[in-house]
């Protein structure tokens, strides 16, 4: 079953987003630790869309499903300019404090946590889809 909900494109929507996610975890038996990781992924992607994809204020669509031992999350942002994740500089996690830059950490964390991520852009619609393979205790 795919669960879908729209959220106003603002940081303040996060509380509602987390509520939606926690309902999904409860219904699907996804354990707390995995849920925290998935919530982090959604927060990072959602806030990136709010902060950097400002061409429209259309609500952001969030879709959630669990199938074949993996959680599938999709965020859809409509009527927006192209977002190129490859243009986001890689974080140098080995840089010393004096040279470390604060930006880019969110996408770095997302890439480390999920098993697959795709960015698709067509007709001014951006779709970000992520899969996370679940632990046996989540399945």
């Amino acid at each position, binding site marked *: 079953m795919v669960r879908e909900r729209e959220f106003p494109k603002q940081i303040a929507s996060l509380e509602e987003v987390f509520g939606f996610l926690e309902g999904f975890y409860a219904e699907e038996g996804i354990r707390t630790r995995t849920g925290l990781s998935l919530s*982090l992924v959604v927060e990072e992607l959602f806030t990136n869309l709010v902060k950097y994809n400002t061409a429209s204020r259309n609500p952001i669509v969030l879709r959630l499903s669990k199938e074949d031992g993996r959680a599938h999350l999709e965020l859809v942002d409509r009527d927006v300019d192209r977002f190129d994740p490859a243009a986001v500089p890689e974080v140098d996690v*080995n840089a010393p404090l004096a040279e470390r830059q604060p930006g880019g*950490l969110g996408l770095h964390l997302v890439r480390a946590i999920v098993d697959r991520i795709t960015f698709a852009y067509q007709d001014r619609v951006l779709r970000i889809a992520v899969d996370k393979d679940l632990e046996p205790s989540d399945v």
Partner: protein
Amino acid sequence: MFEIRHAEDGAILLCGRLDAVQAERLAGVFARIVTPTTIDFRELDYISSAGLGILFATHKRLVDAGGALRLVHLKPHIRELFGIGGFDKLFELE
């Protein structure tokens, strides 16, 4: 829910979930830190890049002034995030 508590020994306890909304509140509190300070994570369940960014900026400011933040009692999943982000090399973690 997210709470910031001040312990008698000067440590700051972070409790609950520190997301991008709550990070704005944390930024206001951390902007007032001017001396080496211990941040106690024992009751913190969640942190995202917004909170990590404030920790980073505060720590860097203090190090430049000859101090530092000291982070204690991180839960394993939060310590793992610090490792992914390379923050375990930037902070003193206990």
